[in-house]
Structure formats: structure tokens, C-alpha cells
């Protein structure tokens, strides 16, 4: 007697991890490769359009105040966010390597604020500083790419938890509709 093959059930934690790391990979995991490819291309294009507009400082973990939330959302774009962050770190280290470690005989807070000013000035001198309105557009693109990936992560993981695999079955058309 032939044994019936067990239907494949995607692993939700693995789906979540892959969906975060490579946008669209979660949908490939749940048997929807075409959707995965579309998601990957769109999120990749949106994220790198943001970096193209804003330059290397778009993904900035040192951004002050509410701007820091953009960094969090950019990190949701997985490998794109990580690559953007590492590029920014490399350029930031290169720019700040010329600056002195301590600036003048000031207290700690004063010295820190002067250092921030010196870093911003060095970035501006090299033409890397993000200014209005470019910063708004660039961070919106890169950040929204991350948020769109969050949406895809939720979708892929929820479907994996329900044990869904493959495209949804279409209802059969009836009568004259069938072509």
C-alpha cells in the first residue's frame, strides 16, 4: 500500500528570518516564488533609490531625535539595510579619522557637542551631509522600503503559521464565464 506523502509545511521562524534578510524570500519559502521576486525587485529598487538620492549618509545610526526611527525602519529591509549601514560606517570612520579625539579644555558635554559640530562640518565640506529636502525624500524611500518589507514579513510568517504552501487555489469558473 502506497504511503501518502505528508504535505510540506513551511517553518515559520525560518520564514520570518529569510523574509527579513532577503526581501521576498519569505514568499519563496511558502511556495510563492513569483510574488517573492516582485517583492524583492520593488523593495530593492525603493531602498536603493533612497540611497541614490540621499547618498551614503541616508542610513545613519547617529541621526538625532526622530530621524533615528528612520534608521530602525531602514534596518527592516534586511541585507539592503545592513549593506547601507556598513557603507555609511566606512565613510563616517574615514571622515572622522582626521578629527582630533579631544577638542579643547571643555567639560564632557561641551566637548561632545563640539565634536558633533566638527563631524557635521567635515561631512558638509566633503559634500556628504544630508540637507532639507533631500534628507526627507531619501529617508522616506529607504525607510518605507523597510516598512514594506515588514508587511511582507508578517504576511509570509502568518501564512507559514497557517501551514499554507503554494498559490491560493482559484475558484473554478462556471458556465459561460469559462473561456
Amino acid at each position, binding site marked *: 500500500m502506497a504511503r501518502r506523502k505528508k504535505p510540506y509545511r513551511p517553518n515559520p521562524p525560518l520564514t520570518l528570518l529569510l523574509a527579513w534578510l532577503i526581501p521576498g524570500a519569505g514568499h519563496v519559502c511558502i511556495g510563492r516564488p513569483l510574488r517573492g521576486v516582485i*517583492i524583492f525587485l*520593488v523593495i530593492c529598487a525603493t531602498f536603493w533609490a533612497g540611497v541614490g*538620492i540621499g547618498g*551614503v549618509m541616508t542610513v545613519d545610526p547617529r541621526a538625532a531625535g526622530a530621524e533615528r526611527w528612520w534608521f530602525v525602519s531602514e534596518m527592516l529591509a534586511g541585507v539592503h539595510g545592513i549593506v547601507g549601514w556598513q557603507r555609511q560606517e566606512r565613510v563616517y570612520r574615514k571622515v572622522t579619522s582626521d578629527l582630533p579625539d579631544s577638542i579643547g579644555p571643555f567639560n564632557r558635554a561641551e566637548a561632545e557637542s563640539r565634536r558633533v559640530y566638527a563631524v557635521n562640518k567635515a561631512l558638509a565640506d566633503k559634500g556628504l551631509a544630508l540637507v*532639507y529636502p533631500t534628507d526627507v525624500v531619501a529617508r522616506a524611500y529607504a525607510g518605507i522600503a523597510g516598512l*514594506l518589507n515588514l508587511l511582507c514579513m508578517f504576511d509570509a510568517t502568518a501564512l507559514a503559521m497557517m501551514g499554507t504552501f503554494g498559490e491560493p487555489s482559484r475558484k473554478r469558473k462556471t458556465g459561460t464565464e469559462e473561456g
Partner: protein
Amino acid sequence: MIAALFVNPVNLSPTSQLWLMLPLFLSAAIVHKTIRTGNLRRLWRDVAFLFTVYMIGGTIVLALVLWLVMTHWPSR
């Protein structure tokens, strides 16, 4: 030149940021419909509808409402 594009920021005018919302809307529409649509054959039709009617239409309606509020808001 392409390498410089991803290092140095582009100079944008304040009005251009409004036009740059359109590709962002399109991205959101494509991703949303890619995960929501039951039939991928209908994807581009659904994206076109969401993009034009809900996103562009909704933005225009919102802009009109805000313009009316700003223009006719009773001043003290």
C-alpha cells in the same frame, strides 16, 4: 559616476519632493497588491486601480480638504 551617485546626495528643489511621492506610492501599491491579490494575473490591473484611484485620488482629495481648511478656517 554611478558610484558617486550612491555616496553624495542629489540636490533637490522643495517642489520636487511632491513629484517624488509618486514612485513611492507605486512601490507601496505593487507590494501591497502582490501580497493581497488572490490571482497574480490581475496584479497589474489591481495595482493600477489602487495607485490611481486610492493613492493619487486620495492625495488630491486630502490636499483639497486641507486647502479648504487653511483658506476658510475662521480667524479670531
